[in-house]
């Protein structure tokens, strides 16, 4: 993880994180904090641990529809960013607008359209939204300019060593987001044999020639839930962010104070007992019927 982040996430670059309220690459985000990679532009939707980049003053710009932590009454992170002189520039659009920006990026076209956001104030404040007329019908549309982040990080349930990975559960902006990126890092709960991936190639996220690095990192989305792997521990995360003292203690002990995610999970087990983590695991797994291929 350390090497992949160091090589591909440069200070000042634009990063997309997958995981819209589901299975975000939080271990990768911790590593970015640990390496203190600064002046990042972050493109993301409903990711929670991006809050740490805000609190640690590593953001230059946020391209988002929503970030809970901008609500200064609720926690200490935006205030910390201000004090560090690193309150990010905001570029805002709606969630659908953001998904279209990334989709256009995936497609290699300069924009996509929707009627959403017409009549709203987003169009006045975001230069990457413009009103246009349809060449066939004349109707008004909001054009959303394409986004191609420098690097994208997606956490997945399983991947082969080449980066052919399976992700399932709700997909938020994962597919258009990761496909839009110039460089792709896959983090995964488990590295598996290529055959496991290729027996169900419909579920493969991107072909491996698109993947720059693959990192195995169990619990890589904690404190988020990840389908098939573990439930979320978000209430604890939200409580920790509320005030400076608990926040500072948390980042010192669980990010700067450890080498990696494995060490972090060990500390969590030490501090709270192994049952604290065990209760997050899937209690009643439901396995799907597979699909058949072959000839």
């Amino acid at each position, binding site marked *: 993880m350390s090497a992949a982040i160091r090589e591909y996430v440069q200070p000042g670059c634009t990063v997309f994180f997958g995981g*819209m*309220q*589901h299975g975000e690459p939080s271990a990768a985000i911790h590593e970015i904090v640990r390496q203190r990679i600064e002046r990042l532009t972050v493109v993301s*939707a*409903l990711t929670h641990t991006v809050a740490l980049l805000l609190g640690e003053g590593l953001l230059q710009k946020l391209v*988002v*529809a*929503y*970030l*809970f*932590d*901008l*609500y*200064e009454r609720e926690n200490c992170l*935006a205030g910390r960013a201000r004090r560090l002189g690193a309150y990010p520039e905001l570029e*805002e659009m*709606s*969630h*659908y*607008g953001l*998904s*279209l920006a990334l*989709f256009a990026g995936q497609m290699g076209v300069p924009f996509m359209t*929707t*009627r*959403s*956001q*017409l*009549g*709203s*104030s*987003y169009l006045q*404040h975001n230069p990457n939204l413009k*009103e246009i007329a349809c060449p066939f019908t004349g*109707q*008004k*549309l*909001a054009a959303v300019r394409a986004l191609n982040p420098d690097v994208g990080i997606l956490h997945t349930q399983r991947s082969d060593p080449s980066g052919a990975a399976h992700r*399932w*559960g*709700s*997909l*938020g*902006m*994962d*597919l*258009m987001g990761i496909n839009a990126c110039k460089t792709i890092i896959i983090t995964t709960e488990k590295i598996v044999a290529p055959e496991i991936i290729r027996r169900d190639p419909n579920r493969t996220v991107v072909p491996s020639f698109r993947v720059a690095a693959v990192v195995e990192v169990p619990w890589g989305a904690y404190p988020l*839930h990840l*389908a098939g792997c573990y*439930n*979320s521990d*978000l*209430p604890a995360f939200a409580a920790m962010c509320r005030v400076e003292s608990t926040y500072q203690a948390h980042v010192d002990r669980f990010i700067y104070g450890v080498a990696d995610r494995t060490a972090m999970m060990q500390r969590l087990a030490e501090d709270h007992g192994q049952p604290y983590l065990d209760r997050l695991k*899937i209690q009643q797994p*439901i396995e799907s019927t597979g699909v058949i291929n072959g000839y």
Partner: protein
Amino acid sequence: MNYTLSEQMVVVAARLLQDGDAVYTGVGLPTVAAFLAKLTHAPNLTIIFETGIIRTDPCLLPQGVDTLPSQTLADKLSDAFYINTLAERGLVNLGFVGAGQLDRHGNINSTCVGDYRQPRFRFPGGGGACDIASLCQNWVAILRQKKIRFPERVDFVTGPGYLDGSPGARERAGLPPGTGPKKVITDLGVFGFVDGELTLETIHARAGVRLETVRENVAWPLRELPSVGETLEPTGNEIDLLRNRIGYRSGSVTESGG
């Protein structure tokens, strides 16, 4: 009958749903309302969450929109793109949104108060609220009512209501014809729209709300139906389902959708 104002709000919202509807709901009261409708008069309801979850069975009450319970045994797991294409196609009958503020013409603001670049107050942002407010056939806002949250004109239109309230304003802006806010449900009353203007329809009188309180908690002279009624109370069955089947506890989920 004992019930909370949150329960009253949920019940009003649930009754707006019709059997066979597809409804786009956010975390909190809207999801509870959808589950309640499903268990009462709308068994064929399809519930859509913005991270891509489409389900027809209720699930354990999500603490967020997206949880393993809300994903598991869903009818379809897709993404934020797919569910909005359903909405833009006109296939989503109703959307629920929360809002930081809501104005005289139903425009919502979940972005900021004051100048956009130097705001006096920052909300977390609109998320998918603009998409719901723009694209669903109709939408309903649910929020607690305080005067500061009901300004005459919002500083930032995060989600379009009837804009300046003039006839056809949404259509002129390019929004899909016939869409717009249908109801606003607060802890004080229920509002509709007449000529693009927020209009009080009923107050939660049985729960002790007075007309004066509703009027005092908007920042302009409130338009009212000629005869403002009393919000129909929750039935015993509804409260039983809410508390014992759905597991809803007032205060156990946050208010806002979208």
